[in-house]
């Protein structure tokens, strides 16, 4: 059955299906119960599955993630919602020193099938701490896996795949795209979770993006096409581990690569990708890998976010610079 769904609704359905499929799945977070979460991603789930399975927690992120660790040890599959990207940091100790390390610490005896859902990124006109892109912090943390979805279908399947996966996963949801719609085949065969995907073929420059920036990259490709430039756009989908083989193949053809993300450029994902692409495709590169990202500043007040965030023009500017080498 194919339905047209927003990313938000696709996540809601995916969570519902995970709750149905496995009685060990427990959702935890602030306001996810009666309210259905501030973005309504868990709308109706507490009503249908009860407050033991959809838990409105006390207001403390370390508590959410730390108790999830204990639940996982007891055989549960906790799915934690962090209300906004900027509020994940109180849970940072539990994530980095515990969630990420317990499988290794126990030499595999204790699995940590925990999903940390985080609506991430900017562009929604919010106040401080509601528009951040903390993915690099997690991708630098061995023991965690990190994915970012960009379409309703990936949202619907990805959340289910993440919950079923035995390792802890930071699951990043492109909050400003929550309301974007596309058809989802609810019975189809999903793409693997840890695989990047070429979403538009092209020959001149390879453009990489994930989460909310995939749409921006596609818009840029559209605009470039009008000027006779052909961009290949790859949705990375998985941020840790990175799945770069399709990227290497593409760059070997195009010789040029631009990475786009909202997070600050310095030590953002673009840094790692640039380093790897250069290592692997050194002799194919006609230009250095260029990065389009947030500036190395805190996320600004919302009146300035359009200037801060990468947009179509900044992507095209980088494409120009790449072609100019």
């Amino acid at each position, binding site marked *: 059955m194919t339905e047209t769904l927003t990313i938000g609704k696709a996540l809601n359905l995916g969570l519902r299906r995970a709750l149905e499929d496995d009685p060990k799945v427990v959702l935890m977070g*602030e*306001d996810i*119960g*009666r*309210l*259905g979460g*501030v973005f309504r991603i868990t709308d109706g789930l507490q009503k249908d599955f009860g407050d033991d399975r959809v838990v*409105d*927690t*006390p*207001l*403390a992120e*370390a*508590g959410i993630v730390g108790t999830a660790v204990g639940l996982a040890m007891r055989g549960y599959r906790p799915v934690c919602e962090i209300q906004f990207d*900027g*509020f994940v*940091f*109180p849970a940072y100790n539990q994530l980095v020193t515990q969630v990420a390390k317990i499988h290794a610490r126990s030499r595999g005896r204790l699995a940590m099938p925990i999903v940390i859902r985080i609506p991430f990124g900017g562009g929604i*006109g*919010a*106040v*401080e*701490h*509601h528009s951040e892109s903390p993915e690099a912090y997690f991708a630098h943390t061995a023991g965690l896996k990190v994915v970012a979805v960009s379409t309703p279908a990936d949202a619907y399947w990805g959340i289910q795949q993440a919950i079923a996966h035995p390792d802890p996963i930071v699951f990043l949801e492109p909050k400003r795209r929550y309301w974007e719609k596309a058809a989802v085949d609810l019975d189809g065969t999903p793409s693997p979770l840890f695989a990047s995907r070429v979403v538009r073929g092209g020959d001149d420059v390879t453009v990489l993006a994930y989460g909310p920036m995939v749409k921006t990259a596609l818009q840029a490709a559209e*605009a470039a096409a009008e000027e006779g430039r052909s961009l290949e756009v790859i949705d990375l989908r998985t941020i840790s581990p990175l799945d770069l083989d399709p990227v290497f193949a593409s760059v070997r053809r195009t010789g040029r690569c631009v990475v786009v993300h909202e997070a600050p450029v*310095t030590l953002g994902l673009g840094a790692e990708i640039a380093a790897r692409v250069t290592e692997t495709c050194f002799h194919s590169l006609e230009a250095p890998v260029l990065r389009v990202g947030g*500036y*190395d*500043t*805190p996320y*600004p*007040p*919302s*009146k*300035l*976010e359009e*200037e*801060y965030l990468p947009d*179509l*023009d*900044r992507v*095209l*500017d980088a494409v120009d610079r790449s072609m100019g080498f």
Partner: protein
Amino acid sequence: MTALSHTTEVVDPVPGAGAPHLPGQPPLVQLLTPEGERVEHPDYSVDVGDQELRALYRDLVLVRRWDVEATALQRQGELGIWASLLGQEAAQVGAGHALAADDMAFPTYREHGVAWVRGVDPLQVISLFRGVDAGGWDPVATGFNLYTVVIGAQTLHATGYAMGVQRDCAESAVLAFLGDGATSQGEVNEAMIWASSLSAPVVFFCQNNQYAISVPIERQSRVPLYQRAAGFGFPGVRVDGNDVLAVLAVTRAALAAARDGQGPTFIEAFTYRMGAHTTSDDPTRYRLASELEEWKLRDPIARVKAYLARSGIADADFFAAIEAEGDELAARIRKGTLDMPDPAGTEIFDHVYAEMPPPLAAQRAEFVEYHAGFEGGVER
């Protein structure tokens, strides 16, 4: 097993208190009933002259007016979001009036009433919610820190600031605001541990408006919040947060004790958030209209008005004048908001560091150059 099977009984921090209290709730300090009658309390009294009473009333009315106007501005798309203080005016105005000039307050994101009392221009608060900046006022000059959005983080700042006050041998105190939900954050508990251990002159002022967004207070604590303090070794007291006089009395006493070297106090101002959590919220999803109706009867402003009128401290002219002042304020806020200039793009870079590092200066220069490229209208 008896020793374990009961919830440890708690000491009433207001021994012998005969104050009226809400049904099913532990006693709380009250000096002005919802009906507007002055009542006595064995431990707390407040010495306010007629002029201060009128000033309190004026502040209550004006901050509500400001709040209503801001909510309207948000609905009209002029603000990104607004966090309403509706129902919490007495807690905030009372606490604000308790502060001495060189005390320092550390608000959350909802203390517009305290901001007002500290002399912060409403437009400097509005600018935050409009997305122009993170608050336009001077925290040092006003003795009112910038808003802190990350729940609870400011309680540690307040405690550290109080450590500085100690080191300066200053006769000042610090007032740390927090919500009921915030009491569950580890950092807030650390702040209390720190303050207790170091006898820091900080007062924790918790507005228990009974909800953290949609989550009712019962999820954060199964005993009244003021009792938390005893576990950390300092006094806790529960006050009627809709009674501006009681709040003033209790907060003044706690701040005086702090200045006097007696260390921290925890004040639980028991109140109710009459509006939505913010303009993005829909409280009909999680609370009953009847609850709201009940709390309307405890309105923090109506009782002061009733008292002022009945006691003859203020007359119809006074009330009308305050109304008019409110209208003027609202108009000024509206105009000020609409006239507010957008920030320059370079603001993104200019305050990140006291000394801007060269790579950031380079980014800034590129930014300027890049945007200059569009000047001629060549933006694609």
